[in-house]
């Protein structure tokens, strides 16, 4: 019974829902449809908005890509311009001959502690020093006309600044084998004098060998000549040959003064004329003057240098050199000496070795007196070895100079000597070098003062630009 009742109730419920629910559903469906339509419209509006936004974003994205592309193009252009400017800058720096005048130079400063102390030369220097500022330029006017001008500011032993027109050369190049220069130039004997001269930064050692020092610095040869210089080089199967032939104003010995320090300590050992003066003599008081403005007592100086760089030994140069001139001094005796120098030299500049050796043999003739011929000699050898930025070096020098020869007797620097030098060069960068050197000098020909040995220590910081 209960089961039957349940069936009836269920059937009644089904009938009720079957007849009445659809009626109610019809009315709610319309509302729903309207609601859906409204929502659809909203959705459509939203979609349209979204589509518009997407479109905007796409346009914006395209703009960004375009901006990025433009930016990349501009970067590339900037790089090109930078390279171009760098190249132009480099070109201008290296060949401003097209647009201006290139000026180069050398400068050096340093420290010195000299133990020299003798009656002839007195006490050596100690303390900080300023070396030389050398400025040079090489304007080329046409393909064949060229020039070289060098101005040097030097500090002398007394601390005064001296200005030297080191070189004023105007030349004409006929070919590689013949280049003619007229003016004041570095006298082309040996290798060192023309290769390094005032270029402290490119010079392998701190000091120059004393025997080829500058005229006002203790040298015994004219480091400069004013006149005509013909130079050239030719390449051949066996190597490269070069030569220098020059003639110019003969140097004179100026600045002689009676009662010199050397005469005071030795009254004999010189030529008879000088010996007769005793302590009132002028021995050792003069310095070489290159007579770059000519002279009322003009004499001519001639010289040559011939060298070979064989192909079988790259870096090697072997040469012969000679100089003949007549030197007059400004003493009351007006001594006149025919200076005859002949010698040879050898350089080897093949890394890591740097070797320079020069030999000078003198056969001087007394033209104003009756002392005849006098033989002397001088030379040096220097060896360096490069280890990266470091180049330790050693040098030995010797000059055996005849004091009967008026040329050496009258010159302040005409004393015999021996020197050993050891040093090290450190290349701070390609344009700056730091050097330290210690040398020991044994000074002879100091008369009753005997000889003097002393040690000198130097440091130098040099640059080129």
């Amino acid at each position, binding site marked *: 019974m209960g089961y039957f009742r349940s069936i009836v109730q269920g059937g009644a419920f089904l009938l009720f829902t079957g007849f009445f629910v659809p009626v109610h559903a019809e009315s709610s469906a319309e509302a729903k449809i309207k609601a859906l339509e409204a929502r659809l419209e909203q959705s459509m509006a939203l979609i349209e908005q979204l589509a518009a936004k997407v479109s905007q974003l796409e346009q914006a994205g395209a703009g960004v890509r375009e901006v990025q592309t433009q930016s990349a193009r501009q970067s590339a252009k900037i790089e090109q311009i930078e390279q*171009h400017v760098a190249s132009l800058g480099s070109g201008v720096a290296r*060949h401003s001959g097209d647009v201006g005048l290139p000026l180069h130079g050398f400068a050096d400063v340093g420290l010195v502690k000299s133990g020299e102390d003798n009656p002839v030369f007195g006490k050596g220097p100690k303390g900080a020093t300023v070396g030389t500022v050398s400025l040079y330029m*090489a304007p*080329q006017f046409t*393909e064949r006309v060229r020039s070289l001008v060098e101005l040097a500011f030097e500090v002398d032993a007394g601390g005064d600044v001296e200005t030297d027109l080191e070189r004023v050369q105007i*030349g004409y190049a006929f070919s590689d084998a013949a280049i003619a220069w007229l003016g004041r130039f570095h006298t082309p004997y040996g290798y060192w004098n*023309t290769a390094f001269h005032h270029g402290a930064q*490119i010079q392998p050692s701190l000091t120059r060998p004393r025997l080829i020092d500058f005229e006002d610095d203790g040298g015994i040869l004219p480091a400069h000549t004013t006149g005509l210089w013909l130079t050239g*080089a030719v390449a051949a199967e066996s190597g490269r040959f070069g030569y220098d032939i020059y003639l110019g104003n003969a140097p004179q010995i100026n600045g002689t003064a009676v009662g010199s320090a050397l005469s005071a300590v030795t009254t004999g050992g010189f030529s008879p004329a000088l010996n007769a003066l005793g302590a009132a003599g002028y021995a050792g008081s003069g310095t070489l003057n290159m007579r770059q403005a000519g002279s009322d007592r003009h004499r001519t100086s001639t010289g040559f240098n011939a060298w070979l760089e064989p192909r079988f030994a790259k870096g090697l140069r072997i040469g012969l050199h000679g100089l003949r001139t007549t030197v007059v001094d400004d003493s009351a005796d007006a001594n006149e000496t025919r200076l005859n120098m002949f010698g040879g030299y050898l350089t080897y500049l093949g890394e890591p070795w740097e070797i320079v050796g020069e030999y000078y043999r003198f056969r001087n003739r007394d033209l104003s007196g009756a002392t005849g011929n006098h033989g002397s000699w001088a030379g040096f050898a220097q060896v360096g070895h490069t280890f990266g930025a470091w180049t330790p070096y050693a040098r030995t020098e010797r000059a055996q100079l005849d004091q009967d020869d008026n040329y050496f007797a009258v010159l302040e620097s005409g004393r015999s000597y021996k020197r050993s030098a050891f040093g090290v060069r450190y290349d701070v960068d390609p344009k700056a070098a730091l050097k330290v050197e210690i040398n020991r000098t044994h000074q002879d020909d100091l008369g009753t003062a005997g000889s003097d040995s002393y040690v000198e220590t130097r440091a130098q910081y040099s640059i080129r630009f």
Partner: protein
Amino acid sequence: MSLKLLFRVLAALFGWLCLSAHAAEVFVICNSGVQIAAPEIKEVFTGDKQFAGTLKLNPVDNGPLQAAFLSAVLKLDTLRYNMIWTKKSFREGINPPPVKSGDSDVLDFVRKTPGAIGYVSSAPSGVTVIQKF
């Protein structure tokens, strides 16, 4: 052991090939009026040879290609090259070759200038190629 060796040889060969493939080509060129041989190129660019007969030579450097040229042709690095010219200028009063901004500048200069010698990175026309490196 032999496989390792073979591997190393192949690796070295591969590396060499890669390097070779990326090494810049250098064409040393001159004005059509210049008579000069390949062995003389170094003498020209280091200032030892300034004339070819009676003709004054005008070497020019190519800025972007200079390092490759110095290495491949002169067997020098830039520092050594600059040092050579510092000494040359100080001693002999001559100036280093001017530096051009690139191939087109060099080509233009070499075509127009009697005695000109330069170098470029691609095969040129209108000039004489002395040698390709």
